[in-house]
């Protein structure tokens, strides 16, 4: 309960929880588009590419005003995403390679600058490296306001351009045919992505921000086939994980916020991959099992029908063994037979079975179905 109390009345915790919640809402939404476009790792590359922007902004202005540093980060991020798109278009380097190259060149250069200013006698640059790892605890109310504004604008733009982004994600050619300018849509997408990443730097840092984009989207995908639902779910997953993660990390163990948020998100994605209602592994197995069972039931009925036809005398009961000779040995045979008896499709006497009237009707309808199929 004290955690809930703190959530409302502890200044730092409130800022952190609110900041990560808002960040998650935006990142989950734009992350869905990023993942569906097959560019899951571009977020990681852009995040790393922002580092030289932060350091150069500091070098040029000698202030640590977050707005200024983040503007530097945004410019570097835009340059990075432009360079990645340019490289994949103009050379034989694939998107993986382009991401890796831009990531490493930009980050390496950023690190060169960072280590350079860290050794300058003036010590005021201390704390710039928090952008690499993120320090949620340093967030103040003005940072939360910035996050809120940026995420608000991002979500609003997503809603306004939903149709255009949707078509450019799934069918880039049709986008052009429908008369949207693809370059402009791609630029809007890139800008939104950079905006979300840049606002996440202070909280979760360069390395883990990509997880806030991709992981909730991958989780949401398992529950729905509709883009709208996926975007909303992904946004919620990311937002909730942000808040839950920051609360967990605020407990007495004093765990780092970014990694905990990522672990919460990962728990969600694991659950979704296993139990997701649309594609989840468990659901798939269960429905496969059900289909198999249904199929085997029909085969038992057909086998009994065939047995009764091949004997002159009607009303003979046939043993479990005989049926399994026709259907094939199944572990589930006893269970299925018991189920059919219960449903009244077959009659049981000792270990032998016979089609009931109802069972015969089912077989007849199966045969009819087959005739329909054949036509």
């Amino acid at each position, binding site marked *: 309960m004290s955690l809930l109390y703190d959530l409302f009345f502890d200044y730092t915790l409130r800022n952190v929880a609110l900041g990560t919640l808002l960040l998650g809402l935006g990142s989950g939404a734009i992350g869905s588009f990023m993942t569906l476009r097959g*560019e899951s790792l571009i977020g990681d590359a852009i995040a790393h590419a922002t580092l030289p922007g932060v350091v150069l902004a500091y070098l040029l202005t000698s202030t640590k005003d977050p707005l200024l540093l983040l503007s530097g980060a945004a410019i570097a991020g835009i340059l990075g995403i432009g360079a990645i798109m340019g490289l994949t278009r103009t050379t034989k380097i694939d998107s993986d390679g382009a991401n890796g190259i831009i990531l490493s060149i930009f980050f390496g250069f950023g690190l060169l600058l960072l280590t350079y200013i860290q050794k300058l006698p003036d010590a005021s640059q201390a704390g710039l490296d928090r952008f690499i790892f993120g320090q949620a605890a340093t967030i103040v109310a003005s940072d939360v306001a910035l996050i809120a504004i940026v995420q608000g604008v991002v979500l609003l733009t997503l809603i306004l351009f939903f149709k255009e982004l949707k078509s450019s994600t799934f069918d880039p050619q049709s986008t052009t045919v429908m008369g949207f300018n693809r370059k402009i849509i791609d630029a809007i997408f890139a800008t939104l992505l950079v905006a979300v990443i840049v606002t996440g730097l202070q909280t979760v840092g360069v390395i883990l921000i990509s997880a806030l984009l991709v992981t909730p989207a991958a989780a949401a995908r398992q529950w729905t086939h509709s883009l709208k639902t996926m975007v909303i779910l992904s946004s919620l997953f990311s937002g909730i994980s942000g808040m839950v993660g920051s609360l967990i990390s605020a407990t007495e163990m004093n765990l780092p916020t*970014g990694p905990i948020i*990522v672990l919460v998100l990962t728990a969600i994605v694991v659950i979704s991959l296993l139990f997701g209602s649309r594609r989840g592994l468990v659901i798939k197995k269960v429905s496969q099992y059900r289909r198999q069972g249904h199929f085997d039931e029909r085969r038992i009925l057909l086998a009994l029908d065939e047995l009764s036809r091949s004997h002159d005398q009607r009303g003979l009961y046939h043993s479990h063994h005989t049926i399994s000779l026709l259907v094939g040995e199944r572990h589930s045979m006893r269970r299925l037979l018991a189920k059919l008896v219960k449903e009244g499709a077959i009659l049981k006497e000792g270990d032998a079975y016979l089609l009931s009237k109802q069972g015969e009707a089912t077989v007849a309808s199966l045969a009819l179905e087959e005739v329909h199929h054949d036509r």
Partner: protein
Amino acid sequence: MTAEIIIIATLASLACAIPGIFLLLKRMALISDAISHSILPGIVIGFLFRQSLNTPYPIVGAVLFAMVMVITVEALNRSALVKGDTAIAIVFPPLFSIGVVLVSLYANNVHLDTDAVLLGELAFAPFDRMMLFGHSLPKSLVKMAIILVMNLTIMLLLFKELKVSTFDPVLSRSLGFSPSLLHYLLMFITSVTAVGAFDSVGAILVLAFMITPTATALLLTNSLLVMVLITFAISSASSLLGVLLAIRIDSGISGAITTIMGLFFITAYLFSPTVGVVTKIRNKQRIALEYALSIVLYHLLHHCEEDDMETECSYGHLRLQFNYSPRYMRKVVHTGVRRGLIEQIGEVFHLTESGKETHVDTFRLHH
């Protein structure tokens, strides 16, 4: 000491380059980034086991975690639940996070902080020394030398197999080399190299060392063997220049080396003789000029020794006819004059004898 740092940097960059070449060509460059992040928990657990980084446990732990990552990613890709790089992007962050959490829980007060692991510091490498055959050598130097020899041996022994499985996995299988075995071998040497390099280069820039020189080489050649040689040359040159740059401006070494590698890449991107951006623009301009010259020649031939030659073949008329800017028109005509195809008599241009012949040739070529 500078010499030692340069040697360690060169060994590390060469060792990284070998798996990097094949990773880039197999279009899976970022798996090396994922590996270098995923090994963190393995290193921490191995470290906690004996409270020291100088035991084999961190390396064993790291390789185990790298393999866990690779296998999980492949299982996810096979399940078709996620597509493309998504599997990589959702598997390595939690592993890395576990590593960071473990560090903050257990290793806060000892020599193992995330800064050192992620960013690396080559400058301290010469202080950590060991005795080998009566010589005192930095441990990192010995470690990177062993890894480089291992990678080189594997590459030399399996060059043909790696080449075939990289470019044509189906052919490779039909020839009897298992592509998946080679794939896991590649993943294994990538992990071992990443572990070996992480404390000097840092986890993030392992990626830079692995793929930037290779990508540069890819822009310069189409032959695998030449590519390997160019990669090695760029890696060594970047290490040398990077260390010198870092000492000169007093910055971190791995960042400086990566920056030099980046400069090599940008240079190749702009000026590569085959695919460079500037080269392509120049080629386009050259073709445009050739075309402009050939139609001017055709025009001159058409009006040569006709009554309207005086007006049709004057500079002003040519410019009106083809609608070129004065500057471009002059350039076209000058090119013709320089090649001895056109001569100017008064205000009128004439085809020279060789101009007529050349033109007949191009005319035949076009029809």
